[in-house]
């Protein structure tokens, strides 16, 4: 049992303690901040949850460019449910997730056999097909205008209304649940097979891993949660439209995960917090935001390809290299002629 820096705690205890404090802070903050900042926190939570799902699929070795579309499937399902069938948000939420998960299951079963690059392109194709299907099926989905006047969620008859705070608690709850589920999966034997598949497909197969089944499972789970988030979004913004879920939005999800660090579980969350927090927090105009995102991306690819969370590792390596270089220079001059 190794202690951290001489303190009487294990690494595990420190992490859990830190997370507990973080959760408490995040639960208390909305009561203290203005509505605008609570909105920023809500948007960050949405981004973080989507990013985490993206990373989950990435761990199993597949790059999906359709994550926003699955959120869209969830969003539209929930929206149509609460506006046309039964005005029960919680059922709608569940339906959104389930439908998204089922669609992912079906599509995945067919499409996950294909090499990684082709799969990425097919997910792009699926995203666009979804968007155009929605536009075409005007009678059901309202076409380009989308579904409007989606009701607010309500608990025990109390409507959420326009207060930002309950929405944040809700999405925070969804975020925590999805992260917990996916994190536990990643740390279990199932997660080990994901990592194995990502690193070497044929080898994993030779070792007896049914890569198809596990990959489909991974994809379906991540898309289920994406559907939940989409359903939340629909009832948060009170409308859904085809323009909300494009390939560019999937790219943005990818960026959150990448900037934070793809290999770290906390990566997407850190990335989302950074990108959304900065761009909304600094009240960047709509035109400057792409510049900021693009610039941040370029900085990360060039200087820190492992993402922000790889900073401690990278700086340690740099430090070590610098120290070694210094030592060799010093030794060389110590042995200079004349000594």
């Amino acid at each position: 049992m190794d202690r951290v820096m001489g303190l009487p705690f294990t690494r595990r205890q420190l992490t859990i303690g830190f997370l507990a404090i973080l959760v408490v802070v995040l639960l208390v903050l909305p009561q203290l901040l203005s509505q605008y900042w609570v909105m920023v926190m809500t948007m960050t939570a949405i981004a973080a949850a989507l990013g985490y799902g993206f990373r989950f699929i990435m761990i199993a070795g597949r790059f999906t460019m359709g994550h926003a579309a699955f959120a869209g499937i969830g969003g539209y399902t929930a929206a149509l449910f609460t506006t046309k069938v039964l005005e029960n948000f919680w059922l709608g939420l569940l339906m959104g997730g389930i439908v998204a998960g089922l669609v992912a299951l079906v599509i995945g079963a067919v499409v996950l056999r294909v090499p990684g690059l082709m799969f990425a392109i097919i997910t792009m194709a699926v995203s666009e097909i979804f968007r155009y299907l929605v536009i075409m099926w005007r009678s059901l989905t309202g076409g380009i205008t989308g579904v409007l006047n989606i009701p607010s969620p309500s608990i025990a008859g109390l409507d959420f209304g326009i207060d930002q705070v309950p929405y944040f608690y809700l999405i925070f709850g969804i975020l925590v649940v999805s992260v917990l589920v996916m994190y536990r999966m990643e740390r279990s034997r199932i997660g080990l097979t994901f990592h194995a598949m990502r690193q070497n497909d044929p080898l994993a197969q030779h070792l007896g891993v049914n890569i198809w089944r596990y990959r489909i499972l991974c994809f379906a789970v991540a898309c289920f949660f994406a559907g939940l988030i989409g359903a939340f979004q629909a009832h948060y913004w009170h409308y859904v439209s085809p323009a909300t879920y494009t390939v560019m939005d999937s790219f943005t999800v990818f960026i959150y995960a990448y900037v934070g660090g793809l290999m770290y579980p906390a990566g997407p969350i850190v990335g989302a917090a950074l990108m959304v927090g900065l761009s909304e927090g600094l009240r960047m105009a709509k035109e400057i935001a792409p510049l900021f995102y693009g610039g941040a991306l370029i900085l990360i690819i060039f200087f820190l390809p492992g993402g922000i969370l790889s900073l401690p590792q990278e700086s340690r390596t740099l430090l070590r290299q610098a120290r070694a270089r210094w030592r060799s220079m010093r030794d060389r001059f110590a042995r200079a002629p004349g000594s």
Partner: protein
Amino acid sequence: MDVALFFQAMLNGVLLGALISLVVVGLVLVLGVARVLNMAHGHILVLGAFAVWFFFVDIGIDVGSKAVNFLLALVLGMFIVGALGIVLERVPFRRFQGNLIAGLVAAVAIMMLIESGTTQAWGTETKIVGAVWAGSTDFFGVVMSNWRWVVMAVGLALMAGVALYMQRSKLGRAMRASASDPEAASLQGINPITVSRLAMFIGCSLAAIGGGVMAPIYGVDLAVAMPWILKGILAIVIGGPGSLGGCMAAALVLGMTESYFTTFVNPQAGYIAMFGLLIAVILVKPWGLFGRPMAGL
């Protein structure tokens, strides 16, 4: 069924196919030689449209007849965007050769930079470029605007030109050699950097020309960037990354598909049909109809 409509759709399909071809050639060349899938190609096409608008409409250069002005704007745009392509090759793409996710990330970054750059400089409204030759021509019952005939001719001519260039000229063959086996090619004395730059320049120039001639039809607007890169990607995946001719053929097929579905069903169905075609092809032949499995993909 209305025969004239049928032929109209066919001609429109050829037009679209030629345009998609201009995009896909750039993608194939860059993928084969520089070994990067340039997702930003659609934005480069729109940059070409912006360049033409800038020289032809905004500044309004005037050296002779309208046609000459447009041509000059087109050529200027081509060189500027081509040069930009060389810069792109040097800075991000060469570093991320071999198709890492990093290449995609770099392309996304470039797209965002282009987007914010153009909106900062010129605003977000769609800009209009007037066609050089207005009016339409009736060709055996098929009516198409004059400018579309011109675009079709230009597109087909460029397709043929590129094909000939790659087959016959020394540099063309150098590019094909480098795409097929970079090590062997360098052993033959082909400088991979030069060839990379050339591929990027040709690809981006073609896209710029495509964007420029498309401007009177579609308007100058960033919104068209994404659909065009998607169509280009469809073409390159259906055709097969290694085969230029295959991708051009795929581009034509895609153009026809879109045209027929758009004419006889509705525009969204056209789009969906193209993607459906992609999925069908990938499931049967994951490397495309004419492609060979590429190492490192």
